[in-house]
């Protein structure tokens, strides 16, 4: 490994750690929000479904960078609070990925056969119980590959947080480069790191899917 990398490895690894943290929190938060919004749209809950529709259309048509700017600059100015780049980034990522996951959830819910829903209703379960006990567990299992595609995408997107000053992996690398002026090994290093991490995430997803998938 090139000397410049070795010298700055601790700093770069801290950046990686921050990347992983942000990704992890955003994935969890985004998944929870995404599932909720997806279910709300599937059930067409009055008022909430319309709000969800607007949210999804808006976020899916907006670049991630702009979403981050709105969370870091926009909301604090509008609502009058101080923002930290880290929390603004996490909020932005959660809002961003949830909009995509919600659509995947809704698509997944619709693939559950109506016959199965009818059979569950026929045994005396209420609608809410059928969604909770039958439809959702099946749909979520089947969307695992789609979800993990989004997770990998999010992991890559954490690099954009560097623009609002978060010292995750890309941010740290550019800082180091500012000192060392060795862009090729440095950027090569982080490119490789992202590659490996994305690969690992995909593998986890594939493993999970092979264990949990059901033919519905």
């Amino acid at each position, binding site marked *: 490994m090139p000397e410049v990398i070795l010298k700055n490895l601790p700093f770069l690894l801290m950046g990686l750690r921050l990347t992983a943290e942000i990704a992890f929190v955003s994935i969890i938060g985004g998944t929870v929000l995404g599932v909720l919004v997806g279910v709300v749209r599937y059930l067409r809950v009055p008022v909430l479904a319309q709000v969800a529709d607007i949210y999804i259309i808006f976020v899916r048509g907006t670049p991630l960078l702009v979403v981050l700017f709105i969370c870091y600059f*926009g909301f604090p*100015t509008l609502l009058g609070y101080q923002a930290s780049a880290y929390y603004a980034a996490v909020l932005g990522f959660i809002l961003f990925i949830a909009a995509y996951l919600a659509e995947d959830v809704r698509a997944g819910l619709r693939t559950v056969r109506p016959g199965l829903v009818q059979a569950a209703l026929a045994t005396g379960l209420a609608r809410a119980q059928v969604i909770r006990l039958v439809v959702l567990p099946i749909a979520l299992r089947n969307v695992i590959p789609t979800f993990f595609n989004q997770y990998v995408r999010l992991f890559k997107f954490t690099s954009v947080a560097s623009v609002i000053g978060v010292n995750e992996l890309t941010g740290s690398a550019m800082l180091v480069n500012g000192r060392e002026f060795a862009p090729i090994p440095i950027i090569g290093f982080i490119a490789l790191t992202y590659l490996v991490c994305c690969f690992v995430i995909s593998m986890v997803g594939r493993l999970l899917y092979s264990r949990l998938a059901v033919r519905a």
Partner: protein
Amino acid sequence: MSYKLDWAPIWNNRDLIIEGFITTVELSALGLVLALATGVIVGTAGSTNSRILRSGSAAYVELMRNIPLLVHMYIWYVALAFLKLPPFMCAAFGLALYSGAYVAEIVRSGIGAVPQGQRLVALATGLTPAQALLLVVYPQALRMVMPSLASICSQLIKDSSLASVITVAELTYQASAIEGQTFRTFEVYITISLLYLLLVTIVTYGLLLVAGARDDLEQRVSDA
């Protein structure tokens, strides 16, 4: 809420916004053309019988896809700074290689979805392999993958916003500039959000109309 929404400064700076919008369109167009070119080449390679070409294609796709777009742009702008490429070109190349990898995957599976028989029939009627590919296989593959391509295209338009980081004066860059002057943070970013949304919607509808995939229209727009 002590902050009062004031859209006037945004309107006053509409020239900057329009300039940025045009640059975004130019950058997206160039990036798209380059992405399609590289994607079609790599994707076609991935669909051949040659093991070397197929693994080469797969490796290329994995490599390009799993490196964040921002890092791609930094590679051209910082790592390869000795090439002295203008930032616009750095952004365009970054978009080309990154989105090109996604295009390659789609092209590959699209070609794979065209029945083998089609290519054989074309060859049997005396067309050269290249003609068979161009005149028979590609058009059919294109029809099938159009919705996915529209999706990639809209993604590319949004991704072009990262060019602002390497100082390309596209829409997001201009927004930051306006914000710096007027401090109308919320208004300016909402405005450009809507502009991106408008652009993406127009382009997606346009592409799908061109491909004649009218029935898929609504479903695909919501996928974008």
